[in-house]
């Protein structure tokens, strides 16, 4: 799934998300909603800066690796999540359902990694797979 599809899905799933951008770790925009290049570049730069600032705080405080960030203000909230290749920033109105927003953002990142597109494990039921109907191995 490419960035545009992932973002379209995200916007469809989560009514709380107002704007979002997906970029790589160098700040190159992959997709932005609203679809505006200038806003996309600004949000991508801010996503990286927010993550850097949060990670610096984490280091100063001697905490474990960072997984996600929420910045909450009276005007609204900003969420930043990251995976090894992408960074995703989203904005919402004030007082969002934080857990749900993070869940939707992480799902979008997973979709971007192609996880839903991966081949599902195939389960084949074989009636004559060599297991006796008694189910035992003969030890009893």
């Amino acid at each position: 799934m490419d960035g545009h599809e992932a973002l379209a899905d995200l916007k469809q799933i989560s009514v709380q998300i107002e704007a979002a951008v997906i970029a790589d770790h160098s700040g190159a925009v992959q997709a932005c909603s609203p679809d505006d290049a200038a806003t996309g570049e600004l949000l991508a730069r801010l996503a990286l800066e927010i993550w850097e600032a949060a990670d610096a705080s984490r280091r100063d405080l001697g905490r474990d690796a960072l997984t996600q960030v929420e910045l909450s203000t009276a005007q609204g909230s900003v969420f930043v999540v990251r995976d090894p290749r992408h960074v995703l920033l989203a904005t919402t109105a004030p007082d969002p359902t934080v857990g749900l927003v993070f869940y939707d953002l992480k799902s979008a990142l997973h979709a971007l990694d192609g996880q839903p597109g991966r081949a599902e494990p195939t389960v084949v039921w074989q009636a004559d797979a060599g297991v006796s109907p008694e189910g035992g191995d003969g030890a009893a």
Partner: protein
Amino acid sequence: MARRKRKVLGAATLALGSAAGSVLIFKRKRERNASRADLYFEDGSMLSLLQGAPEADRMLPLAAEALAATGR
């Protein structure tokens, strides 16, 4: 006389309790609306940094810029 005194005392207690409850609700609401940075870590813990903390003050202007760029 004692009955009247008890009534007044009950009313005063009720008024005081209501006032204390209102103050508590107002305080909680104000805390909830305060700007803050919530950092989530790999070990499952979360750290909430309120506006005024140096770490939060590094991040909150960036959030304000992002929200302004998206029309908030």
